[in-house]
């Protein structure tokens, strides 16, 4: 995730209400059984929490830390390192455009520009209606289908700017 300083005074007070809920808590406990140490379940846990809640809130990370028996700082330390985790609230759909060499050679830059123009946002931003978040990604391992992008875990292959309207309409259904 991208590091962002936080205003501690404005931060929400810890609540007694659970951010994870029973279902997620049980899922995390089940993940722990797959590894010799509880901390090892952290990466899959954060994936699960983010998939369910949309982002990693402070409260959620505190609760994850309690289940995994590590400090909240350790959870944040790991979460901050990996690109795919985010504390920000993101849009309903996340559009990740690959900007590595093969994609750039085959028109990845044009694709990104077309997306910026269509959505009227810059990478890292979300459209005002909360529908789309645009991000750039390092090589997504689809160089044979360059230029490629990932929308909500689905790979879109050899995308040309004129296909964008159709693709966006389709996922927005």
């Amino acid at each position, binding site marked *: 995730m991208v590091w962002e300083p936080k205003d501690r005074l404005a931060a929400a007070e810890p609540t007694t209400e659970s951010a994870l809920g029973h279902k997620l808590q049980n899922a995390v406990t089940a993940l722990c059984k797959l*590894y010799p140490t509880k901390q090892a379940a952290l990466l899959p846990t954060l994936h699960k929490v983010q998939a369910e809640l949309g982002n990693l809130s402070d409260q959620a990370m505190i609760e994850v830390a309690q289940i995994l028996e590590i400090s909240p700082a350790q959870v944040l330390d790991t979460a901050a*390192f*990996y690109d*795919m985790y985010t504390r920000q609230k993101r849009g309903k759909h996340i559009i990740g455009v690959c900007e*590595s*060499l093969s994609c750039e*050679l085959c028109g990845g830059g044009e694709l990104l520009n077309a997306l910026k123009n269509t959505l009227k946002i810059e990478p890292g931003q979300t459209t005002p209606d909360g529908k789309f978040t645009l991000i750039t990604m*390092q*090589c997504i*391992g689809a160089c044979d289908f360059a230029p490629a992008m990932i929308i909500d875990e689905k790979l879109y292959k050899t995308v040309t700017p004129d296909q964008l309207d159709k693709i966006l309409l389709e996922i927005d259904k």
Partner: protein
Amino acid sequence: MSFKPILTKNVGISSIRKLDVYRQNGGYNSLDKLFKTPRDKLLQTVKDSGLRGRGGAGFPTGLKWSFLPKDHPGPFYLVVNFDESEPGTFKDRYLCDQDPHQIVEGVIATSYITNCAKAYIFIRGEFPEQAQILQKTVKQAYKANLLGKNILGSGYDLECVVHRSAGAYICGEETGLLEGLEGRRGWPRLKPPYPAVEGAFGKPTVINNIETICCVPHIINNGPAWFASMGTEKSTGPKLFGVSGHVNKPGVYELPLGIPCRKLIEDYAGGVRNGKRCKGAIPGGVSMGVLTEEELDCPLDFEGPPKYGCMGLGTAGVIVMDEDTCMVTALRNIVRFFAHESCGQCTPCREGSAWMLQIINRILAGDAAPKDIDLLVELADAQGMMPGKTICGLADGTAWSVRVFIKKFRNEFEAKVKSKSTVTV
């Protein structure tokens, strides 16, 4: 001699992801022989085959396994490296898409030979679809008693877990990968101790690339001599080559090691697109350097690219660039990638790669002085494992590509410095 695909032989068979279809096509046949043969004999078989790691370094696989301690109480772990993040590389994704059970068969064979009790498949975060495919495949295998307790009555137990990472190139480095597996930031560890002695969770650990472990069942089935008959003397066996960039037919091609780069591009990948000439090709992932058009006869095996100033074969992900490509812009893309993916642990890499990116941006913006090119080379020489400045080899990749691009295409850099042109991408 015509070459019959081995690792990709099941490509195109419908429903190959189903266990019974895979079995009908000879899948899991190696297990009978595997469980009946003593472990030291199996290890010798892999050693004799000359199999070398397919993940980038080309380290002899059998030798790597023989470093495991003999009198350790265990448990041993197998960690399969499916974190292929090097730009230009997509062969492992292809293997998983086309034939996921082959991976599980490889996991069983490798784990049995090295006596591992648990296998983790470490898959990169950008492959959500592949993680699901693998998860399903592992589940099927558990159901058929190919994983779990007492596999097929052999008395051997093996657990297998698919572990999904979250977007960090550095986790492809084997000790960075272990840190990611243990739930920490992927900062590579100082070596020694090597993972074979003290790896995941402090236990002896085998770390191999997906393609490497997929070779193992075929070696058991057909013998080491068969495997060594393919490729060259020092680089044996088949290899998946991924070709991308300005070619007509980008994709994965399985061929024996040692095929000339030009042949791969022209005979298999359909040549450079739009009838253009090739200006250069990256032989194996962006950290390896670049081959010029004249150097394309370079054989793609572990010994070939170093003869042409490249670091090595790497992941065999060939990126082809046509005559219109601006090499400075191409290098900018590569350095931007490394600057982004530097884990931040060692100063020369963290600061050096970002500084190099600034200089290249300056050159492209037309604000550079002639000495900036020499400064780039000086920075490249001052980072990496080879001059002993960093913990892992990520900075060597940055340095190597900068050095080779400037050495082979210096005139383009100088022209950019002189022309004060403005390029924005």
